[in-house]
C-alpha cells in the first residue's frame, strides 16, 4: 500500500465510493491525519487528496508494529458532468468525506408524466 516518493513515505488510504445520484461520495480512512491540514484539490479533471499525518512515536522499545505512519495521498480521475465549484469535504474521527456534486443538467431526475 505504501508508495515511496522522493521525500517521504506516503500511504494510499482505503476509500469507499458511492454513486448517490445527485453526487458522488468518496469516503477515505485517514486515521491520525490532522483535519485542518488536509488538502483537497481539483485540477484538470483530477481530484487529489493529501492528508498530512503528524509523526508519532510510541515511547520505549517497539514490540509490535503493524502499520506505518506517513501522509495519505490519493487521486481520482473524474469524468465530465461534475460541478467542481461545489465540491466539499469534511473530516471527522479519522474519516474524510468528499462530496462531488453532479452538474444540475446531468443529475438523474424523475420526470412527471402529465395526463392529456
Amino acid at each position, binding site marked *: *500500500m505504501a508508495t515511496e516518493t522522493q521525500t517521504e513515505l506516503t500511504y494510499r488510504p*482505503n*476509500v*469507499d*465510493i*458511492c*454513486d*448517490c*445520484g445527485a453526487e458522488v*461520495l468518496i*469516503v477515505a*480512512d*485517514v*486515521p*491520525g*491525519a*490532522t*483535519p485542518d491540514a488536509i488538502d483537497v484539490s481539483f485540477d484538470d479533471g483530477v481530484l487529489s487528496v493529501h492528508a498530512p499525518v503528524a509523526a*508519532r512515536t*510510541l*515511547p*520505549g*522499545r*517497539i*514490540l*509490535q*508494529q*503493524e*502499520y506505518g505512519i506517513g501522509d495519505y495521498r490519493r487521486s481520482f480521475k473524474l469524468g465530465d458532468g461534475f460541478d467542481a465549484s461545489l465540491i466539499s469535504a469534511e473530516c471527522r*474521527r*479519522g*474519516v474524510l468525506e468528499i462530496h462531488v456534486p453532479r452538474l444540475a443538467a446531468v443529475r438523474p431526475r424523475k420526470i412527471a408524466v402529465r395526463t392529456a
Partner: protein
Amino acid sequence: MSLIPFRTKRATGMEPGSLATLADFRNEMNRLFEGFFSRPLQMPGWFETAEPGQWLPSIDMSETDKQIHVRAELPGIEPKDVDVSVSEDRLVIAGEKKCEKEESGEGWTHRESHYGSFSRAIPLPEAVDPAKVTARYDKGVLTVELTKSPTSTSRKVPVLAGSTER
C-alpha cells in the same frame, strides 16, 4: 441415507459473513503479509484471524520500564462504541464500526474499508494492573496506556558456578 455428504456452506467458505467478498480476502491477506514481512520473528498477532463477519484492527505496541503502550487505527468509530478491557496479561479491543450511509445498500460502487464488529485480544508481554489503564481516542486512533503490575517485575536470576551433584 446419503452416502456422499453435501458440502456445507462453511466448508466452501461461502457462508454469508465470512470472508465473502474479494475485498475482505484481499485485506486479510495484506494484513498477514504486511505483519509477516515487517516483523517476521516477532509476530504474536500473526496467527490471529478474524471471526466470520469481523475484522481485526492493526496495532502498534511498545514498552518502557513501567508501562506498555498500545495504539490501534480505528477510523470512523464513535468512542462510545469502543470497548477496551484488560485482564492481567491480555488487552481486548472490541467494538463496531457502523456505516451510517449503508442502510440502503445501494449506490456503493467501490468498497475498501472495513465495517461491522471487531474484536482483538492482544497478549501483553507482562502482567499489568487492570486498575491503571487509560484509553484515549483521537482522530481515528485509539491509544491505550497500561501500567505494569509491580508484583510481576522480572527478576534477574544469578547463575551459580559449581556442580549440583552431591
